[in-house]
Structure formats: structure tokens, C-alpha cells
């Protein structure tokens, strides 16, 4: 029984992630549309897009190689594995011992890297441009991510995500400390950069010269494109979910019971929907920054992460 629920939680996390990701994107577009005075295409539209793309004919551009073919599946796979590891619904799963935050961060980077290689593999100017920019941004995000990990791991004494989350559930004061808040801010900026959102990248741009993520995937069509889009949407959901798990952990199942799992799923949906709405609303107010202003943004988030580390060390009485 114990194992059944545990595995159910893992499968549930992956299913919620995969099924919910397009809905989250649809929801965010809907929020944005309403703020812009439009009617919007409905929350289900990304699922319709995916369905249609899966029905379309797969295309292999001549001159591309295995990296181009494998990247979409790898992108989705890394997100699925990371999604199975982090405690989105439950902290007590059979895999929770493996859920190391550094591993999760590295898995997400692996997906980025696969897509960048695919962009270079096409040999088009836009593919290379997207890959180059994406890797630049990704390499600058890395210090922020790892320092945030560092800051979060100090009070918990471990980098194990379920341990951090359950620790936070039991002593909520940790979250309201300066260290916690600074780490949230730093991680939030890093998440924006990792998921190619405004102000780092504009997900709905049509101008190739301003693209980062889109430029890498210009050659994908049909089912491959469906996987790429799904992968990107799942990544957004995963990272927003991780953010909510780390900083609003209440409701995540810590024990093993079916009810708590269902409650956790509902609360997860609510939390991510709220975060998504906030993000979508913020995107209406912000503009994309110039590519060479992005380092400033990331340097700022790095500073916040560093302050989080020092604050958690000095203020919370490690001495």
C-alpha cells in the first residue's frame, strides 16, 4: 500500500505536469488577452495546437542530423524526470531520496543544451543565433540558480528538495526570513530567464532578430514541434511548481494517503494558476529588455542570491 501510493504520487506528478502544462499556457494567454481587451482563444487552445501538430506530417530538413531529431524527446524527457523527482504533490515518494536540487537544475540545463545543439545542427543562421544567445543566457543564469540552491539548503542542511520542502512546512518562519525572500526573488528571475519569458525573451515574437528560444526551433514542424512546445510548456509549469513548492509549501502531501494526494493536486493547480496569472499580468506591464541588458538583470538576481546566502548565514544565527 505504501509503495502504491508513493508510485501513484510520482505518476500523478508527471501526469499533472504533462496534462497541466498546456492548460497553464492557455490560462496565461487568456489572462493576457483579457488584460489587453481581447476575448482570447480559451484555455484549451494549446491542447488543440498540440493535437493538430501531432496530426501533421513530420518533416526532416535536409542536412540535419541525429541531434536535431533527438532534441525534442530529450527536452521533454529531462523535464519529465525532473518533474518526477521534485515534490510537486508529495514529499514522500519512492524517489524522494534522489531528488537533489542540483540534479534537478542540471537536468533542466541538459534540456536547454539539447535544444541549442539542435539549433546549431540545422546549420541555418537563425538556428545558430538562437543557440548562441540561449547558451549565453543559460550560462549566466547558472550562478544564480546554484547560489539560490545554496541559500535554500542552509536552513535545511541538505540539498534534497523533499527535505527542504518538508522542513519549510514544519517551520514556516524560515520562509518569511530575509534569506527566504531574497532567494525567492533571485530564483524568480532565474526562472524567467530559463523559461524564455519577458523580460529576457519574448515568447510570441515574430521577428527573428529579437528571438532567443524561438530562433532555435524555427525548423521544427509537426509532431517534433509539438514535443518542443510541450517541453517548453512543461518546463514553465515545472519551474513555477518548484517555486511554489519551495516558498508556498502548504498543502503538499507529506504523508501517504489518497486524500492528501488529491488535495495536493488541487492546491498545486491553484498555486501554479495564481503564479501564472501574476506572471502573465506582469508581462503586460514589462517590455523585453535588450539582449545586452539581460546580463544586468542576471547580475542583479545573482546579487540577490548571494545576499540570500550571506543573510541566511549571518542573520539566522549560524554563529
Amino acid at each position, binding site marked *: 500500500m505504501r509503495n502504491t501510493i508513493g508510485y501513484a504520487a510520482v505518476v500523478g506528478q508527471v501526469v499533472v505536469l504533462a496534462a497541466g502544462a498546456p492548460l497553464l499556457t492557455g490560462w496565461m494567454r487568456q489572462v493576457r488577452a483579457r488584460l489587453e481587451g481581447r476575448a482570447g482563444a480559451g484555455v484549451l487552445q494549446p491542447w488543440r495546437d498540440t493535437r493538430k501538430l*501531432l496530426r501533421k*506530417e513530420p518533416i526532416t530538413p535536409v542536412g540535419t542530423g541525429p541531434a536535431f531529431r533527438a532534441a525534442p524527446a530529450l527536452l521533454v524527457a529531462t523535464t519529465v524526470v525532473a518533474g518526477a523527482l521534485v515534490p510537486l504533490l508529495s514529499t514522500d515518494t519512492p524517489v524522494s531520496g534522489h531528488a537533489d536540487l542540483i*540534479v534537478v537544475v542540471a537536468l533542466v540545463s541538459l534540456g536547454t543544451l539539447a535544444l541549442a545543439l539542435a539549433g546549431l545542427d540545422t546549420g541555418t543562421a537563425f538556428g545558430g543565433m538562437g543557440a548562441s544567445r540561449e547558451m549565453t543566457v543559460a550560462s549566466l543564469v547558472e550562478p544564480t*540558480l546554484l547560489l539560490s540552491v545554496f541559500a535554500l539548503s542552509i536552513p535545511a542542511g541538505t540539498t534534497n528538495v523533499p527535505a527542504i520542502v518538508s522542513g519549510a512546512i514544519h517551520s514556516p518562519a524560515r520562509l518569511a526570513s530575509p534569506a527566504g525572500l531574497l532567494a525567492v526573488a533571485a530564483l524568480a528571475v532565474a526562472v524567467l530567464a530559463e523559461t524564455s519569458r519577458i523580460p529576457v525573451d519574448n515568447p510570441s515574437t515574430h521577428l527573428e532578430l529579437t528571438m532567443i528560444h524561438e530562433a532555435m526551433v524555427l525548423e521544427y514542424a509537426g509532431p517534433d514541434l509539438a514535443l518542443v512546445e510541450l517541453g517548453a510548456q512543461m518546463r514553465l509549469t515545472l519551474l513555477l511548481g518548484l517555486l511554489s513548492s519551495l516558498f508556498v509549501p502548504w498543502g503538499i502531501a507529506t504523508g501517504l494517503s489518497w486524500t492528501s494526494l488529491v488535495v495536493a493536486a488541487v492546491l498545486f493547480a491553484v498555486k501554479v494558476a495564481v503564479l501564472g496569472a501574476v506572471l502573465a499580468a506582469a508581462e503586460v506591464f514589462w517590455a523585453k529588455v535588450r539582449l545586452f541588458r539581460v546580463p544586468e538583470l542576471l547580475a542583479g538576481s545573482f546579487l540577490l542570491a548571494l545576499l540570500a546566502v550571506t543573510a541566511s548565514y549571518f542573520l539566522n544565527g549560524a554563529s
Partner: protein
Amino acid sequence: MSAIPAALATATALAATGALAGLGLPYRLRVAVVGVLTAGVGVAGGTAGVAALGGSRWRAVYSGLVPLAGAHVAVDALAGLFMAVAGAVLAAVAVYGIGYATGHGAHGLGSRTAQAVLPVFALSLVLVPVAAAVSTFLLLWELMALTSLFLVLAEHRGGHLPLGRSRERGSPSVRQAGTWYAVMTHLGLVLLLAGFALFAAQAGGETFATLRAGAHGIPPTVRGLVFVLVALAFTSKAGAVPLHAWLPRAHPEAPSPVSALMSAAMVNLGIYGLVRTGLDLLGGGPAWWWLGLLAMGGASAVYGILQAAMASDLKRLLAYSTSENMGLVLTGVGASGLFAAHGDKPLAALALAAALLHVVNHAAFKALLFCAAGSVLRATGLRDLDRLGGLRARMPVTAALFALAALGAVALPPGNGFISEWLLLQSLVHGLAVPGVAVAVVLPLSVALIALSTGIAAAVFVKALGVGFFARPRDERAAAAREAPPLMLAGMTLLAAGVVALALVPGLLGHGLDRAVGAVGLPGSGALTWGGLGVRLTDISARLEPLWVVAALTAAIVLATGLPRLYGRRRRRVNARLWDCGGGAPTPRMTYTATSFAEPLQRVFDDVLAPEQDVDVTPVRESAYLVERVRFQHRVPDRIEHRLYEPVLRALASTGRAARRLAGGSVHLYLGYGFAGLVVLLLALVVGW
């Protein structure tokens, strides 16, 4: 007990035979025989190393071998680790080298001298960790330096290439690299000599056992001086910034198998020397030693990888990446010493284990990377990424192996580099429990620097793989490339097997690593438990089982490709032209080159890199408004070299000129100098005593 001396004796015998064979045999036979014998040296040395890792130890004194002191030798697990790494790399690279030198013709690596020196270099790589006395160590160290110098210079005439084209870069760069290498390595030797002489004089003996026993009686300032001298020499050998200047010159110019040996086995010995003297012989030291190492490590990691990001020469890129990885190792060693200085032995053991594991991992993937780069060089005569490209279709095995090694180098799962970096990060993250302001300030910075270097490393190897091997060829030579011959592929496959094993089951290495860490007096298995599949930290809830990560990823890939197929209409996959914006087929010139790929990073780090560019516009003769030609030059010089070395060199040159003025040629003048010197000395004695 008996395995180690027997193996070492075999290695020595094989190396001697190899040297003779290299001198005597005709070209075709020579390459094969020397290759096999060198591989034998590697296997024998590796066997000895593995035996030492397994727990056996050995010590001996051969009083006749070295005048005055006699040769002291000893093998413990720490030495064993480095011997095993060197041996394994040697065995695989020697096999690769047979194929490489065969194609090369009787020049370059195939030449008589190079083939005679190669086995000796191999032997020295295996034997340096065996030395157990200062004189023995320095002799072997110098042997290694000299033989490697010979090999770096092997292609000074310009290697002969199978396609009958001359190499892109002529021999001047080889000669220049040789000069830099010779000067820096010998300055290092001088420092080593000074440091060890001081140490031995104070400890009252030159065997490592005496040094170890006498280290604690030495006054702290002298100990500090010894450490600084020795550390400068060893970090220079390891290619740490700012003493790295020889590395990005010598490694690219050496024949590729030699580059692989230097980057994967020789630089490690710098780390070995540092661990041996700093942690073992001197028995640890005050925090400032280790803070210095941490600073050096962080600087090397970030600066090395930044230069690698700017490099468009494939082998130069790999050389700078060596600098980066040695920086990471130095960070681990520094953290280990720092924790030990503050009394946290288990954490110190964890940091050292991470550093040593990274040495092993780096050796595996870097040897493979250099070999793959060598295959590319041999097939195309090109090292310039801007001209390569499209090799994945023409050299599929080489490309796949390069990709595998690159995965290790970017330190992402499931690569092997990730495991050691994970351990290193864990040791740093949990290091905050160690008291001390310096620790609290330095550790977050170290984590940030490691993270930055890892992030940029990802960009670097995406560039190397994506620009160098993917897309389309940008040069006819790259378009005409053919897969490397079977022997080279065999050597690379051996290395690849090592990379895969290290990536999937690092636990196999566990006990050996514990013993190696234990050899310097830290509790080997105090902080780590090596399960069958992975690593687990003892006091902290953290574990990593790479095999499971790989299994999960594979399952997820199957799921991600399979599920859509079930739903989709199963239309046939069709081929289509690349989308060209409707403007006609994109030419290879339109693809992104390495330089353009690195451009955003270069702009971000403008202040650090200080690139130089100049635009030269030539108008036509008739009118100043019509442009005939625009020349744009852009290069990213090694700024540290620029700022640090050139002033020193200039100062040296002017001193030289001044000295010439002093040396007037008159015998009286020289005698006068001697007399004045004597008087001054006596005066000093009178005043001093």
C-alpha cells in the same frame, strides 16, 4: 605486495625496450612496436596503481641508482590513484597513437627521436608518483619535463599530412610554444628545488618519511614559504591561472596523442605534488594557504573557460578547458585544506575525494576529447572551428565519441564530470557549518565561480560540438574528411568505455578513492558511502545514483517518442529543404561560426577579456567615398599573459641589456667584480655575526 614492484619493473623494462626500438627500427615497424610497448608501460603502471588502490603498499631504496642519496620509492593509495589514471590513459592513447603516427609519415610523431622519447615520457608519467625522496622526485619530474618538451617539439617541421596539404600553421608557433614551455617548466623546477631544499634542510633529511616527521618542527613562516614555492611550481604544472601561459600554447601544438597525455596525465601530477606536499608532507597548514589555492582555483576555472569560449582553435579550446578543470580540482583541494585547518576532517575528506574524482573524470574525458580532435586534425588538417563543420556525417564514430566526452566535460547528468562536480558542490555547500569568517565569505563565492564556469562550459562544448561537428562543412578539407583508421578508433573506444563506466557506476572507484584520501591522513570513508550504484553522503541526506538517472531519462525518452506516435496519424516522415526565408538555399557561409557563437559571451565579458579589433577601410584611388576593401580584424588576446608576462619579459630584456654594459670584456673588470663580491660578503659576515 609483490604485484607492484613486478609491474613497475615490467614497465621500466618495456619502456627501455621501447626507447631502443624507437631508435633502431625502420619507420613502419617502429611505430607499431613502440606503440605496443608504450601501451604495455601503461598497462603495467596502471596495474601497479590499481594494486595500490586495492590496499597494497610498497617501499624500497635503491642506493646505487641515484648518486649520493639513492633512489627512494614508495607506493601508497594516493600515488596509486595517479598511476592508475596515467596508466589507463597511456594504454588507450598509445593504441590511438599507432594509428595516428602511421598516417603521419616518418616526420612528426613518427620520427626516430619522437618514437624513442615517447616510451620514456610514458614511464616518467607512471613513475613520478612513485618517488619517495626529494632527489628521486626531482629527477623523475625533470625527466618528464624534458621528454614532454621533446614531444611538443615533434612537429616543429610541420607535420606531414595524408592529404598532401601543408598544415595551416607553420612551425614558428611550435617553436614558440616550445620556448614558452621550456622556460616556464624550468622556472617551476627552480621553485621546486628551492622549496624542497629549504624543506629538507629544515626537516633534516630528504626522504619523504623524514620530511613528514620533521614538518611539524619547522617554524610557521618557513613552512609557509616552502608551501608557496612548491605550490607555485605545482600549480604552474597544473596550468592554473596566472601560471597557465605555457599550457594553451604547448597543448595545441603538440601532436594530438601527446596533447592527450599532457592534458590527461601530466597536469594531474601538478595536483599530485600539491596534495602530496601540502596535505601529506607538510601535514596541512594555516587557512591562508588554502584560501590562496581557492582563489587560484576560482580564477582558473572562470578565466580558463572564458578563454575557451573565445577560442576558435579546437585544441586551444580544449587546452583552456584543462585549465578550467584543474581550477575546479584546485578549488576542491583548497577547500579540503581549509576544512582540515578548521578541524572538520570528514568534510575535508569529502572535498578531497571530490577533487581526486574530478582528476580521474577529467583525465578520461579530456584524453578522449584530444584524441577526437586529433582525428579531426588528421582527417582535415584543420583545427579552426570556423572552417570545420558537417563532420557528423563524414566521421560519425569520432563525432559520437566527441559528443560523449563533451557530455562529461559540461558537467551535466548523465556525464561523468557531473558526479565529481556534484560532490564538490556538496562539500562547499555544507562547508558553511565550518566556523570562520573567511570560510563564510569564500564558500559562496567559490560556489558562484564553479557555477559560472559550468554554465560557460556548457556553451563552450555546445560550440565545439555544434559548430565543429554539426551543420555543414565550411571548408573543402572538412567536406573531404574521412573517418579515422580502426586503431585510432579502438584507442578512443577504450577511453570512451572508461568515460561511460565512470559516468554510470562511479561506485566502483569508491574504495580506492577512500584509500587515496586516507593516505594523506584524512578519514577516507568518513563522509561518503559508495553504494554499488552511486554515492551517498554519510551525515547529510544527499545521494546520487547516476544509473537511475540514465534509466529514468531513457524511459522518459521512450515515453516521449512513443506516446505521440500512438496518437498521431502515422504520416510518413518527409524530407524538405531547410527553410531559407524563401531566398534560395543557405550556403555554408551563412552558418554560425565559432566566433559568431561566442560573440554575445564576449560582449558580456568585455571588461574581463578586453578584445582588440581594428577596421581598415581602403578607398578606391579615384574617390575617397568609394570603398575598395574593408579589412576587419578581431582577436581576443590572453589578457593575463598580456598584462603580467609581457612587462616581466620587457624588464628581463632591459636587464639583459644593462648586463651587457657591465660586461665590458676586460679581464680586470671581471676580476674586480669578483673581488668586490668577496669583500661585500666578508663585510656582511662581520656585520651579521
